[in-house]
C-alpha cells in the first residue's frame, strides 16, 4: 500500500488513508446489511443462533463504522481543511446510519426477556438494514457532490496501480471483518459451552446466573 501505489499528485501522502477509510466504511455498511439478512434467518426459524450471528455482525460493523468515520474525518481535514463537511452525502448518510445502529445495543439492553429481546432486535435489524440504501438516496439528493467519485460503476477514475491496491485493501478489510466475526462467534459459543459444562459437572449453584446484558447468551 505504501510503496506500490503511486503518490497522489494533489494530496500527496495523506491520500494513502483512502485505502483504509473507504474499505472500512464499505465493509461496515455491508456488515449492517449482513446483520439484517441474518436477522431474517432468526425471524424465519426462531433459532437463537441466528440472533447471535446477527448481533455479532452488527456489533463488528459498528466498530468498523466508527473506525471509518474517524479515518474519514482525518482525510477530510487533510484534503478539504475541515474535520466535518456537511455538504457531503456519503459522510452525512453514513453518520445517520451509524446513529441509528448505535441505538441497537441500548434497545437490546432495555428488554429483559431474552426471547423477546432476540425477536425485537431482529425486527429492528431487518428494518434498519433496509433503511441503509433509502437513507443514502435521500441524503445524496439533498446535497451537492464533493466527494471524489472514485467508485462510479462505468468508469474507474483511478489509475490501474491505485485501483489494484484499493481492491487488495478492500478484500483485506473484508477478510478481517469475516475473521473477527467468526472469532467472536467462536468465543461466544465456547463461553456458553463452558457454562453449560460447569453447570452439569459442578451443580447449578457454582455458576453465577448471567446478568442482564445486551448480548444474546
Amino acid at each position, binding site marked *: 500500500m505504501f510503496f506500490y501505489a503511486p503518490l497522489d499528485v494533489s494530496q500527496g501522502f495523506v491520500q494513502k488513508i483512502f485505502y483504509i477509510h473507504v474499505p472500512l466504511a464499505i465493509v461496515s455498511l455491508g456488515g449492517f446489511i449482513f446483520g439484517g439478512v441474518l436477522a431474517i434467518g432468526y*425471524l424465519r426459524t426462531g433459532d437463537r443462533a441466528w440472533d447471535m450471528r446477527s448481533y455479532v455482525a452488527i456489533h463488528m460493523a459498528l466498530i468498523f463504522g466508527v473506525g471509518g468515520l474517524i479515518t474519514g474525518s482525518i482525510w477530510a481535514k487533510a484534503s478539504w481543511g475541515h474535520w466535518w463537511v456537511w455538504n457531503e452525502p456519503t459522510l452525512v448518510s453514513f453518520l445517520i446510519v451509524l*446513529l441509528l445502529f448505535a*441505538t441497537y445495543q441500548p434497545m437490546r439492553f432495555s*428488554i429483559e426477556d431474552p426471547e423477546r429481546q432476540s425477536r425485537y432486535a431482529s425486527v*429492528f435489524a431487518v428494518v434498519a438494514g*433496509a433503511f441503509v440504501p433509502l*437513507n443514502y438516496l*435521500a*441524503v445524496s439528493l439533498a446535497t451537492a457532490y464533493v466527494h471524489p467519485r472514485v467508485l462510479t460503476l462505468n468508469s474507474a477514475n483511478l489509475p490501474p496501480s491505485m485501483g489494484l491496491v484499493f481492491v487488495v485493501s478492500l478484500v483485506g478489510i473484508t477478510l478481517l471483518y469475516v475473521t473477527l466475526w467468526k472469532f467472536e462467534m467462536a468465543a461466544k459459543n465456547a463461553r456458553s459451552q463452558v457454562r453449560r459444562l460447569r453447570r452439569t459437572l459442578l451443580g447449578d449453584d457454582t455458576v453465577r446466573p448471567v446478568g442482564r446484558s445486551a448480548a444474546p447468551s
Partner: protein
Amino acid sequence: MKTAMVVLRKDLRLEMRTWETVPAMVLFALVTFVIFHFGLNRATIDGQLAAGVLVVTLLFAALLGVNRLFVAEREQGGFDAFLLAPVDRTALLVAKASALFLFLVVLEVIAVPAFGLFLLGPPLGHALPGLILLLALANLGLSVIGTFVSAIAIHTRARDLIGPMLGLPLLVPALIATARAAGPLLAATHASSAPPGKWLLILALYDVVFGLIAYAVFDFLLED
C-alpha cells in the same frame, strides 16, 4: 379491515373522552413556536428557516403522540386481549397508524395556521395547497414509523427513551424531504406554489417502502 376499524374507533373514542394526547401535542407545538421566536430572536421567518422550524416542531409534537400510542393497551392488557382474539395482527398496525395519522391531522390543522400567525413572514394562503399535500405524505411516513417504533418501545424498560431514540434516525430521510420541499413553498418571494416533485417522490417512496416493511414485520412484535 373491519378489525382495524373497530380498534381505530375505540382509540378515537378513548381520545374524545380523555383528551389526553392531542391537546398535549398542540400545546407543545404552540409553546415551541414561542420558544423559537425568542431563540432565533426574529419576529418573522421565511424560506428554508421557516420550513425547518415548522417541520422540527411538528416532528417533536408527533413524538409525544408516538410515546402515548400503546400506553392504554399495555396498562389495561389490551395486547393480550388482541392476541386472544382470532383476528389478523396487522390490523393493529393499520388501526394505530390511522389513529396517529388523524391525531397529526388535528395537530396540523391548529399548529400550521398558528405558525402562519405567529412566525411566518409571507402569507400562508399561497403555500397552503402544496403544504397540505406535503404534510399528508409526511404524516403517512410519521404514523407508520411512529407506530412501529412505539410497538417496539412499549415493551422495553426505558420506553420513553427508546421510542424517540429509534424513531429519530429512522425518520431522517422523510424529514429531509419534507423540510426541503417546504422551503420554497414558504419563501418570501413565492417562487413556487407547488412543492418540488423530486422531494414528493422521495417522500412517497419512503412511505411505500417503510409501509411495506412495517406490514411485513409487525406480526413479530406481537407474538407472545
